[in-house]
């Protein structure tokens, strides 16, 4: 089997979904595309590793999420230390409806474990048991986070709608 050909097929089937997941997690479309491409590049450099895993998409999702977390921590550190007019980076949003962009932005205000549960369940389409496995927590904990997350999103977005009215 040709590693590049295999990966190209996986990319065609799953890159869009992975970008959607990473956009939900980061709220930054350019960053989401970037970390997904980086995850695929790592997979291409380690074809044997990809063949070992039961679900290439799940492995790629985990790699991409780890890259995103690492980058976020590094940027947070520097932003705290240096104050300069040239530090702000523009937000990148995909050309989708404003309501959906607002939903992605509201997701970023949730605690990371809650946000990850919501995104993995609703956007990555993982079953609750799979989310629990990916997050290293119990099924009950995932259910609780999903409920809390949806309530928090409704409150945040509801407040914004009321203030517009």
């Amino acid at each position, binding site marked *: 089997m040709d590693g590049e050909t295999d*990966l*190209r097929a996986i*990319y*065609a089937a799953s*890159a*869009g*979904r992975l970008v*959607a*997941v990473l956009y*939900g997690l980061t709220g930054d*479309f*350019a*960053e*989401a*595309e*970037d970390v997904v*491409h980086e995850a*695929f*590049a*790592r997979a*291409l*450099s*380690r074809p044997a590793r990809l063949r070992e895993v039961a679900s290439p998409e799940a492995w790629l999702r985990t790699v991409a999420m780890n*890259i995103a977390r690492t980058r976020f921590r*590094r*940027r947070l550190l*520097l932003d705290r230390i*240096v*104050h*300069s*007019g*040239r*530090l702000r*980076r*523009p*937000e*990148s*949003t*995909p050309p*989708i*409806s*404003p*309501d*959906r*962009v*607002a*939903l*992605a*932005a509201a997701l970023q205000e949730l605690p990371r474990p809650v946000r990850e549960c919501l*995104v993995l369940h*609703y*956007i990555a*389409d993982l079953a609750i048991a799979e989310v629990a496995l990916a997050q290293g927590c119990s099924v009950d904990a995932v259910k609780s986070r999903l409920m809390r997350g*949806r309530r928090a*999103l*409704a409150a*945040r977005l*509801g407040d914004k709608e009321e*203030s*517009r009215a």
Partner: protein
Amino acid sequence: MPDLDLVGLGEETRQVFKPRFEEVLRRARRRRRWLGALTATVVALAGGGVAVGLAGGTASPPPDRASYRGTATTLVVAGDIWHLYQLTETCDTGGCRAHFAVSADRGASWSLVPPPGPDGADRQVVSAANTTVVVATATNRWMTVDAGRTWFEATFESRATTQTDQLAYVDGSQVLVVRPGRGVLAPVAAAQPLKEARSFDGGGAMWMVGFEEDGGRGLSTAVSGDFGRSWQVQRLPRDDGFLDVTSANGVDLYALYGGDDAFEVFSSRDGGATWTRTATVRRGPGDGRLLATRSGILWLSTPGGVFLSTDAGRTFSVPGFTDLGGVAFDTSIDGAYVASTVGADPRTWVSEDGYEFEEVP
């Protein structure tokens, strides 16, 4: 009812994603080259007797000529009308390989040179004046006076500032200036008047924006027309929702605020002493930025597009110079304007007059 359709969010995002598998191939090639170089270094070190020099006053290897800059991690900063700078990177399992991208021909071609600081450091370009550039890492400030060929740790001196000094950046409680071509930073004489301040381009004088009071209250501009020996502080229209402030001549100032569903543009015709709201522009999610240019154009960049005003901020039209969402602006010390984006496919536009922006490779 708020829209909580997360499934729809995922589906819409998936549909607008444009596949670029060639980007994966390019990154993988670079990663293989990097690993090859790493392996060679490890073998050489294992063989013994190899001294490895890192950063700090050493000449960098010849630049890697490439039109591909990598993933842009910072915006383009303009040193002057010819020199543009940007930090880029490519990542692999060992971390991210960072580059300092330099263009000496107004963006027509780019060279990649190693950036200063230790491997894995986060960096930001905080100042650029001609070929003199300051890059900040978490613990150090690095300088080059030859557009990135050599780097050294910044040193500081106390001296009287003059008109040849350029406001470099605000570093905590210090306002620092730099003299192009000279690799030493100097704090200005007067105490920093604002908290959490940042500098902005205001047409010649030194300008900054920040808070007069603790707790993020009293948003104000501060301007010095005597090279930092004194500051004049004036309040902005309000604190809440502030996004950006800009001026091309130090007299006509524009401030941008964001509400829930509209951007508000405020104008001042007296250097910031008094303000009037002149326009509201419908807002989607995300922030906006302003750029006032000497041609009288006021640019407003939003995630939904880039608008321009030719009547001093009273009305805005969409010029369509970019098919992207928002861009960020920078102004060089000799008056060139640059707009840029970050990410895997960075784009850059350059303008000499602040009106016609030309996209560069």
